[in-house]
């Protein structure tokens, strides 16, 4: 192998090198989550805004944008998992004989369950993709946006707004979502503060601020993501026709109240 390749391989095998991979992929994943929650919150703007956003994601860069993002995320997630799992294996091997009376002085609970919160989030992400992207549930697979079809004859698009609301009306789905997002919040409360240390940017002066930033982002994401199932479960968010949907007069929802104007 050439010297450059050897040096890169050696760096990636070192504990510090793998931690750096975790930190850098973590930054990408946090940025994705911030974008994702901002997009999701469009559901409160109504059917048209949500579905326009979903259509934009699928059509940007001639439909290639979404695939570039998916492949990028897949690589980031793959590297994040590989590096953390291999580090956890090494860390466990580093103490073969455990203390008879173990004690913790200051490590946070979140920092001690990182691998379990991470693996639960992974299981949730697999479910979430099957649920809302692959749409294995037939009830969510065939939901045409009637308002859009009426306004654009000959065209059709998936009604993401209706899919989200129908999806979260299932209490088990919402429960899994709430548990996973809460664990994500726990994971990020330690992960975001940690990445500053791994990147070498933490000092006694900045440590408190970095910890607060981690918590602030984690809590903001928790509120943002969970506001949607909360709104659906409390009935604040219903699958009612939008203003433009009024013209389409969706027959499947005759009990829906009259749409608000404006």
């Amino acid at each position: 192998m050439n010297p450059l390749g050897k040096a890169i391989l050696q760096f990636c095998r070192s504990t510090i090198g793998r931690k750096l991979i975790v930190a850098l992929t973590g930054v990408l994943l946090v940025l994705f989550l911030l974008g994702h929650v901002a997009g999701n919150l469009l559901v409160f703007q109504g059917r048209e805004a949500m579905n326009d956003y979903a259509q934009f994601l699928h059509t940007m860069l001639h439909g290639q944008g979404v695939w570039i993002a998916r492949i990028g995320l897949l690589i980031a997630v793959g590297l994040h998992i590989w590096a953390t799992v291999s580090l956890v294996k090494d860390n466990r091997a580093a103490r073969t004989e455990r203390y008879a009376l173990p004690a913790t002085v200051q490590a946070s609970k979140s920092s001690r369950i990182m691998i379990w919160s991470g693996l639960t989030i992974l299981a949730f992400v697999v479910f979430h993709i099957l649920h809302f992207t692959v749409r294995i549930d037939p009830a969510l697979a065939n939901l045409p946006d009637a308002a859009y079809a009426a306004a654009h004859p000959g065209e059709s698009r998936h009604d993401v707004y209706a899919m989200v609301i129908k999806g979260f009306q299932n209490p088990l789905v919402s429960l899994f979502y709430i548990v996973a997002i809460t664990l994500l919040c726990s994971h990020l409360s330690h992960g975001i503060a940690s990445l500053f240390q791994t990147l070498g940017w933490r000092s006694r002066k900045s440590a408190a601020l970095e910890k607060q930033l981690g918590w602030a982002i984690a809590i903001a994401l928790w509120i943002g993501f969970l506001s949607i199932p909360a709104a659906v479960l409390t009935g604040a968010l219903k699958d009612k026709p939008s203003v433009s949907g009024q013209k389409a007069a969706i027959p499947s929802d005759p009990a829906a109240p009259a749409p608000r104007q404006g």
Partner: protein
Amino acid sequence: MNLTLKVWRQKNATDHGRIETYEARSIPAEASFLEMLDIVNERLIEGGGEPIHFDHDCREGICGMCSLTINGVPHSKERGITTCQVHMRKFRDGDTIWIEPFRARAFPVVRDLVVDRTAFDRIVAAGGFISVRTGSAQDANALPVPKDDADASFAAAACIGCGACVAACKNASAMLFVGAKAAHLNLLPQGKPEQDKRVLAMVRQMDAEGFGGCTNQYECEAVCPKEISADVIAKLNRDYTAAAVKEAVC
């Protein structure tokens, strides 16, 4: 004071070892923790038993030899002191005290509470030195060193290499020790020229010894008898990454 001791006993490196219980009666509250063990050992010897083996040397907190995990915390839960500086007045009459060796695969138990910490020596031998003679003490200001750097270097140099950081870390990571040993040289003009070579060699030796990785929980910082800041770990991460990049492309 009357105490119940739960002590790790292990005949040698290959023995499995076990926790054994001892009743320590009439221990003076003014005794140090190691003096308490001395009293228990004298009684064990008088009774024809095998004394509890433990490491100690200066008994004034500067040599780094004592290495007991007391109630799950290396050097006890008292902050900023070594085991030899712990006094029995910090315990209550009737307490049960668990005494275990520093636990890490890289610190194999030699006997009872004595562990082999020569892995630290091998890390220092890999790069924790300056390879040219730097001369006698300089005249003041002959070699300008910014005050902040001098202070940070001095704080890192306070490391006595006891290994409590490894023993406390959930992953038995030696990052605080290696960070301190690298930082106290890297921050000074005498140590700068060999900085990259030093951190690459020391981190590689640390990994080869079987220490775990840092997960930023700062248990090491909390138990360090010299209260060395985890800032040295951030600096080690930064210096190692920079050195590895330079090694790859230069």
